[in-house]
């Protein structure tokens, strides 16, 4: 017998042990106590002004890829604020464990804190900040999705996101160094070289899953003749899931370790791999928590670094990619650092046929993976991909098969979208493009 169509469409409730067990431990008293502590000790003028100013006009709706993909009001930024912060403030914290669970789901899996809605609100209300504060409350109550909580635990135990042990880290670097020496015999990944110009830092998943990126970075650094080093001790990981769970104390420890490692090595600046959220944490959020208006040691994102190397002629392009490519502007380095024009310079320098996706630059739609959403893990994957059909449409409209995305989370998120919507596309980092296009000086070749 056929199953009625409506039955098929019914979604199973997603069970996340972190939320279920966290909520089961809660009492009304504890919720009220924690919320009131956050309201009095942590929230102040900004939150009050945002909540009092919002005129409930709904103009932020079309900023949000969740709303554009689902089309119903509970996905709009203001709809999410209504379901969480308005209720919390109106009831002065007298909300149920079930409410906290739902609030955690909304703030952690239905918002990428991508800040596009700030650009659509006539008042510029920072909805991402409001959602981050909801996450903060949920964190203090111990109701955070399990997978991302696990990465936060990893940060606290190892100072990296992926439970990478110190010897494994060093071993991975030496392994990649050995591999790369087959191509470039004089190549070194200098560990803990004091006084180097640049400290190169990456996110935990690079040694864990994408070690070839370290290989490629070493090739690039050597070809460009850069004086660089990578730390041998904890502090090598610039990523930060604690920032996204609302565990700001932990975020502070991670960032302090990262900056102190760079300070110990007396480098002139930190260059970060192609990651968006880590950049947000080091450049914008973590430094503030530590009391620095701007990062205490200059930090630049890999794309800006490549741009500068190309501009200064330290690397040269031997041949351009012939296949048409498109570029995805990651939130955290575009709305977060305005690197969009530098990235376009890079694309045009390395590719013959560049097809823009629309909207682009600051207006680009988020990948739906960032902001910790992909880190909430497999239970939430289907929802995450279904919540970004607008991205699939945007990618498909370019008609190209290569999408450059200089951000780890964007990569993961876009690959899931590409596979689910069968877009016949694949993603590349800029370093992948450079490896195919840049000139390797003869003297360095094996």
């Amino acid at each position: 017998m056929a199953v009625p169509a409506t039955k098929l469409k019914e979604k199973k409730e997603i069970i996340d042990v972190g939320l279920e067990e966290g909520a089961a431990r809660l009492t009304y008293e504890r919720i009220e106590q924690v919320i009131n502590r956050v309201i009095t000790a942590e929230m102040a003028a900004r939150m009050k002004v945002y909540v009092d100013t919002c005129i409930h006009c709904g103009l932020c709706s079309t900023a949000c890829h969740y709303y554009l993909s689902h089309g119903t009001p509970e996905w709009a930024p203001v709809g999410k604020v209504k379901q969480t912060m308005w209720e919390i403030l109106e009831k002065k914290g007298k909300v149920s464990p079930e409410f906290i669970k739902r609030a955690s789901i909304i703030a952690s899996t239905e918002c990428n804190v991508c800040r596009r809605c700030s650009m659509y609100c006539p008042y510029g209300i920072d909805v991402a900040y409001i959602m981050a504060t909801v996450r903060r409350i949920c964190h203090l109550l111990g109701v955070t999705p399990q997978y991302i909580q696990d990465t936060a635990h990893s940060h606290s135990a190892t100072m990296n996101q992926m439970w990478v042990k110190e010897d494994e880290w060093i071993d991975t670097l030496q392994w990649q160094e050995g591999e790369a020496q087959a191509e470039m015999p004089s190549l070194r990944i200098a560990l803990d070289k004091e006084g180097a110009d640049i400290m190169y830092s990456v996110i935990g998943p690079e040694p864990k899953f994408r070690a070839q990126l370290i290989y490629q970075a070493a090739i690039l650094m050597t070809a460009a003749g850069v004086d660089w080093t990578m730390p041998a001790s904890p502090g090598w990981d610039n990523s930060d899931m604690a920032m996204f769970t609302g565990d700001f104390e932990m975020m502070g420890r991670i960032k302090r370790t990262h900056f102190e490692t760079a300070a110990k090595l007396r480098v002139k600046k930190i260059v970060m791999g192609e990651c968006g959220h880590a950049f947000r944490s080091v450049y914008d959020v973590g430094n503030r928590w530590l009391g620095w208006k701007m990062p205490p040691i200059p930090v630049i994102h890999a794309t800006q670094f490549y741009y500068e190397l190309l501009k200064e002629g330290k690397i040269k392009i031997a041949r351009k990619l012939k296949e048409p490519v498109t570029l995805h502007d990651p939130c955290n380095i575009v709305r977060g650092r305005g690197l969009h024009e530098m990235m376009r310079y890079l694309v045009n320098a390395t590719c013959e046929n560049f097809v823009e996706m629309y909207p682009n630059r600051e207006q680009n739609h988020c990948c739906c993976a960032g902001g910790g959403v992909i880190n909430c893990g497999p239970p939430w994957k289907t929802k995450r991909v279904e919540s970004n059909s607008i991205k699939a449409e945007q990618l498909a409209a370019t008609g190209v098969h290569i999408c450059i995305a200089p951000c780890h989370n964007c990569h993961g998120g876009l690959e899931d979208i590409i596979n689910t919507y069968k877009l016949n596309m694949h993603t590349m980092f800029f370093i992948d493009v450079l490896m195919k296009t840049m000139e390797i000086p003869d003297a360095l070749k094996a």
Partner: protein
Amino acid sequence: MQGIYEFVRGPLLWLTFIVFIGGSLYRLISMYYLLKKKERWVFNYMSLKYSLRSILHWIIPFASANMRQRPIMTVMSFVFHICLLVTPVFLLSHIVLWDESWNLSWWALPDWIADIMALVVIGACVFFAFRRQILPEVKYVTSVADYAILAITAAPFITGFLAYHQWIEYRTMLILHILAGEAMLVAIPFTRLIHMFYFWFTRAYTGSEFGGVRHARDW
């Protein structure tokens, strides 16, 4: 009747201005002190250049992407806000009152234009009310208070329009008009109408963060 009229345009008006100005100042000053006490760092990020850049892009019609994507709403909001602010200030009958009381006068709108502008404000309020009913994403976040704000805003214009045309008993309508205007002014500091003042600060802050720290456009 005369007694009531004298009262609403005399002592009650004074009280209104005291509450409106005092209340608004209180909101702004207390917010400033709260900011200074708990989020002092915000001041370090404020930039005049990027504040003005952001404000300009949001007070010029169609200067932001969102405004271009919603032309009807953009036209309605701009026309509404302009008429709302300009009509009462440049209405001849209001200037006459200023002249009588304070010997102050300035250029006045021709009455027929002011008439149309009042209708525009009323029409826009009706439009916003319908919008709240019709668009699901707006309806979802609309509460009674949102309609109340619209009613408070439209009331001085409805009563003013009726008083001017003298279709209903003039004196009563005039008193109602004054009361409605006073109610609106008093409501500003205590409702979301405070956005009239907060707008400049939220925009300036967001503009400063986007421009100064993030090197990105916020429109």
